[in-house]
């Protein structure tokens, strides 16, 4: 045939090898890294997962949710519930967190999808607040003040003794290593899964809905079903991530688990400054966010002030984020999803 379709690019190839190298390095990191670095990496990876799912929602599904803390909190509380009430080990209980968030997402979507744009955003926030208030009534899990994972549950947690023996660590440090590996696995699975999705024909449908919902319907895309699909996937992943975060902290309260600034505002900041609607954007964004936080978090409210200003400036100067700016200038995509037609008579096109 004279023409063929190609998504691979050289930059993508190189990025693939670099990514494999980085993943291998990240797996062996606990061998030589101290506990502080492992905790920082855990923070970066979990925020990255939340950001990738918010990006899938807002950047591809056009669903600007300000209520993702509902799924972080629900996932975390379901994990705590499974451990405290049913005596499940915390590691498999993380799965219960994902499932609980998925179940919460069904009625949330049912109501919130009746709203558009800003109303949808506020609607999701309201639902998250309602969920927080309801969970705060749950006395068995500490009510409004929260509770901790029982010592015996965290002590006997799957894999902890193996990690302790492997690295000669104390129990708390071993738990951090375990949580870090799980976060790494979740982040790799999330990015890999989203990348697979976008290269698949569902990716075309998602991009079409993102660019123009009315036109997408007119070429046969089931826009409603696509929105349900991304909302449920994002809720499940966010719930898993929330449960994992609170396995690591081993302490929960409604205010921490359903915290709108921590689990949604920061996440939006990461996606917006990095570049919405790209896989690379949230990766760049989380690194910038972490650097800012490490450097300036001691300045209290001035730090938040600065985050706000940086967010506004980036939105004005580079509406598609810093990665968008970079990739527009250079044409480089680390996760290429564009299907290019290769053959005679076709100019390479502006990529």
């Amino acid at each position, binding site marked *: *045939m004279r*023409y*063929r*379709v190609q998504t691979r690019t050289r930059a993508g190839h190189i990025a693939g090898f670099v990514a494999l190298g980085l993943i291998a390095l990240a797996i062996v990191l606990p061998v030589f890294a101290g506990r502080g670095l492992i905790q920082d990496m855990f923070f970066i990876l979990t925020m990255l997962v939340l950001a990738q799912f918010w990006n899938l929602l807002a950047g591809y599904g056009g669903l600007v949710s300000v209520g993702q803390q509902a799924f972080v909190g629900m996932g975390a509380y379901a994990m705590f519930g499974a451990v405290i009430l049913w005596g499940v080990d915390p590691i498999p209980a993380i799965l219960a967190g994902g499932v609980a968030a998925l179940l919460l997402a069904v009625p949330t979507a049912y109501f919130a999808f009746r709203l558009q744009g800003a109303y949808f955003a506020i609607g999701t926030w309201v639902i998250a607040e309602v969920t927080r208030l309801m969970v705060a009534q749950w006395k068995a899990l500490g009510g409004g003040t929260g509770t901790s994972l029982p010592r015996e549950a965290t002590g006997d947690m799957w894999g902890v003794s193996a990690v302790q023996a492997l690295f000669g660590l104390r129990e708390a440090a071993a738990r951090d290593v375990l949580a870090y590996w799980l976060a790494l696995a979740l982040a790799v699975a999330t990015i890999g899964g989203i990348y697979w999705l976008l290269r698949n*024909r569902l990716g*075309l*449908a998602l*991009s*079409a809905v*993102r*660019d*123009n919902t*009315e*036109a*997408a*319907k*007119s*070429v*046969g*895309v*089931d*826009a409603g079903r696509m929105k349900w699909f991304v909302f449920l996937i994002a809720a499940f992943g966010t719930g898993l991530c929330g449960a994992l975060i609170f396995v690591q902290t081993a302490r929960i309260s409604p205010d921490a688990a359903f915290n709108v600034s921590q689990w949604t505002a920061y996440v939006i900041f990461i996606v917006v400054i990095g570049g919405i*609607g790209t896989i690379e954007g949230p990766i760049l964004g989380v690194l910038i966010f972490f650097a800012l936080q490490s450097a300036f978090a001691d300045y209290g409210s001035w730090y938040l002030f600065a985050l706000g200003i940086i967010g506004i400036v980036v939105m004005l100067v580079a509406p598609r984020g810093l990665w968008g700016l970079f990739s527009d200038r250079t044409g480089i995509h680390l996760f290429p999803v*564009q*299907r*290019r*037609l290769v053959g005679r*008579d*076709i*100019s*390479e*096109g*502006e*990529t």
Partner: protein
Amino acid sequence: MTILSLHNVSKRFGALTVTDDVTFDVPRGQALGIIGPNGAGKSTLFNLITGNIRADAGRIDFLGRDVTRDPAMKRVQAGVGRSFQIPQPFEKLTVFENLATAASFGRRLPERAVTAACLDILEQTELMRRANTPAGQLSLLERKRLELARAMATGPQLLLLDEIAGGLTEGECQALVATIRAIHAQGTTIIWIEHVLHALNAVVERLLVLDFGRVIGIGEPAAIMASKEVREIYLGIEI
């Protein structure tokens, strides 16, 4: 055989009746033109046929089946393709990806057949050179061509064109008319809303006049254009 028939279709937006008891049939293979002043309800009529809006009353049959309650997506898959008056491309997707989306979901082609189907359409609509260009970067003519190409990629038996020649230069318009004639010659039924009457007259075999949401004339183009009512409506507009 009749491909599309509307029976007493009405649509109101608040107190305003934009489609008023509209009834007409379109035989398979015909090219029907729709004319009428601004605000006559032409685009609304299209949206009713494509399912982008729902009728308040009446019935719409496509290929002998009642589709009045079917959503837009279902009707595309059944064979109703459309272009938008103001081009609505998927801006961040390339021209090829725009077509591939339509071929995958509208025509429901399997993955391996999509590329070949899109290539033919790119060729026919003269967009091959721009296949890898993001749709947001196209010129007006190219956007109009993409509207046509994307509608074609849904594999339509009935193709609805909404003012596709509007805003083009004379030369561009003639080239587009040639493309549309070629598509029609292949047997696709066409309904075309257009203000550029000479472009319309070069293609259509039958003309429908709409005013205040009502059908005030339908028939052979020369006879319709000669009628007193149409002349009154188009008074001041050169025919």
